């Protein structure tokens, strides 16, 4: 796919939960290789948009077009296999498994061995398992996690867990990566490190990244284009400078301050 071609097209996505309209008429074109930020106050509908893209929610209305193909309503595992990977706002690692095993999970959909191939010792499953492990180790090394490979994922410090989760998403060989508040719960320094990390993997893996953030400052440094939503409705889009000075955005975030008090 060439750069600048639209890879993910969100057409009037709407999600209604009973009487609550969580997202209304969300429209967006994301081009290959882009790094787009999506920000908005708590409860604005950001995660809901991700869930509609990944098939966890079936949109009340609208379509998701990935690489020219309508993927609306496909089950999550199929969407993942097509090349859209994600992380979760509350890290969802398989805590009792090692970091390496977490990455290996993502290789399973592309396993060549059949079930019987894996159960019987004569079909060379051992070789495929070794290959997968080497590949997974290579990936962990590429993201600077090699020495944590055999540690229980749930026992790692928070920041490392976040990276393992991203590594696991990368292992699905995605073309689009959705990151849901990756810097949540981090101190400013860790958040900056993570944003640097995000830029690195985008280059290394040739990714398109759609990034949700709650704290505006975090995305300001790295996303050339930012969309802002509030109460499920897009209120602004533009460069960090444009967003920073947009009165509607300021109002929305001030509104949140007020709501919090």
């Amino acid at each position, binding site marked *: 796919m060439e750069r600048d071609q639209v890879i993910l097209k969100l057409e009037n996505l709407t999600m209604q939960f009973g009487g609550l309209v969580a997202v209304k008429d969300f429209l967006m074109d994301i081009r290959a290789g882009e790094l787009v930020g999506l920000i908005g106050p708590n409860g604005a509908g950001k995660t809901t948009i991700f869930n509609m893209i990944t098939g966890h929610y079936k949109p009340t209305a609208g379509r998701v077009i990935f690489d020219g193909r309508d993927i609306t309503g496909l089950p999550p595992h199929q969407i993942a296999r097509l090349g859209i990977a994600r992380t979760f706002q509350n890290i969802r690692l*398989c805590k009792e498994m090692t970091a390496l095993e977490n990455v290996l999970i993502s290789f399973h959909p592309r396993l060549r061995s059949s079930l019987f191939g894996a159960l019987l010792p004569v079909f060379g499953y051992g070789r495929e398992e070794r290959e997968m492990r080497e590949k997974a180790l290579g990936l962990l090394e590429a993201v600077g996690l090699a020495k944590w490979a055999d540690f229980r994922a749930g026992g790692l410090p928070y920041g490392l867990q976040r990276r393992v989760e991203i590594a696991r998403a990368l292992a699905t060989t995605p073309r689009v990566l959705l990151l849901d508040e990756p810097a949540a719960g981090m101190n400013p320094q860790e958040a900056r490190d993570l944003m640097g990390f995000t830029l690195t993997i985008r280059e290394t893996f040739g990714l398109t990244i759609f990034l949700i953030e709650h704290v505006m400052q975090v995305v300001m440094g790295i996303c050339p284009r930012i969309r802002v939503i509030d109460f499920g409705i897009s209120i602004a889009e533009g460069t960090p400078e444009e967003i920073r000075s947009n009165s509607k955005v300021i109002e929305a975030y001030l509104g949140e301050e007020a709501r919090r008090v």
Partner: protein
Amino acid sequence: MFPIFTLPRSEADTRMSGNLRVWCNRGLTALVLAGLATFIFFGDRHKDEFSLIWRILNLGAIYAIAAVGYTVINGMTGQFSLGPHGFMLIGGYLATLLILPLAKKRFVWILEPLIEPFASFTLPYSGFILALLGSGVVAVLAGLIVGIPALRGLRGDYLAIATFGFGEILFMLVVNLPSLTNGAMGVTGVPTYTNLAWSWGFLIALAYAAMRLKNSSYGRALRAIREDELAAESMGINVFRLKLLAFLFSAFCAGVSGGLMVALIGIAYPGLFSFFTTFYLLLIVVLGGLGSISGAIVGGFIFAAVFEALRFIDTAVVPGMRMVVFAIILILVMLFFRRGLFGQGEFSWDGLIAAVQRGLGRLSGAGGGHGAGSSHLKA
């Protein structure tokens, strides 16, 4: 320094000793298998002299087979099934229909004749393996009927409800399909083909398959489903298919187990496997450690031994009292011993050697306390 240059040396070292260790372990396993084969051979030849022990060893293997399957779906995959007794019942009846001699078939089905094709053929002893495989396959077919609708739903308790209902329906079917099952009267005179060679042979084969499953990419996907279904499907895992796979594996094991049981005790009747059987299996897999194959095997044999040892309670006190005892044991295990004997882990020679080293170290004083085993532990 690049981290890449600090790794290889130590890596290579451990890999060398690792290879040696693998071969040592394989040697030990081969020795044990040879020992087992000898034991099975002489055990079956002298079964009349040690009939109680021989019976317990068979029962243990039969429970262990069902428990190995049960721990794959309940423990490894984390899907709560209440179905094994139903699959055992199906397997038991299929084996009955396949191996009951023709003369017996004419004699037993007096009210309603047995339907074809079962009325006109029977397998000789040499076909017992086909009967047992058939028991497993028919249980798998039943498993498809229950599993496909029950596992599609997102809610975890669907499976428990559906499999519970399945067991009840199956009981009614067995009672009310006399032309197939001879109804409530059951079937007597089933040839008692089961011996240690069959029961232990199938246990070894199925436990081996379960271990390979657990250590493969499939097993990893199953464990991922247990830990976080949503995350697993987001990584491209077809959660439904894998749950079904685990469920069908457990059904196959239960079917074989039922076939072996009928051919051990020589009779089949509707209440042969009831909800109590599933309850016992639950006790076995929790006792062994949910998700541990080794635990399911050890648990199966412990259960068979204790169950026979406590037979006096039923005869001396009140019939059915044993069930109460086991209910109490299950509650105590759940409360105070939830990890079971093996946790989710497995028996391994390394683990055993490390344990022995620790034991010896403790005996010989403070010096050897930290054996090779403990230095492997991380985090």
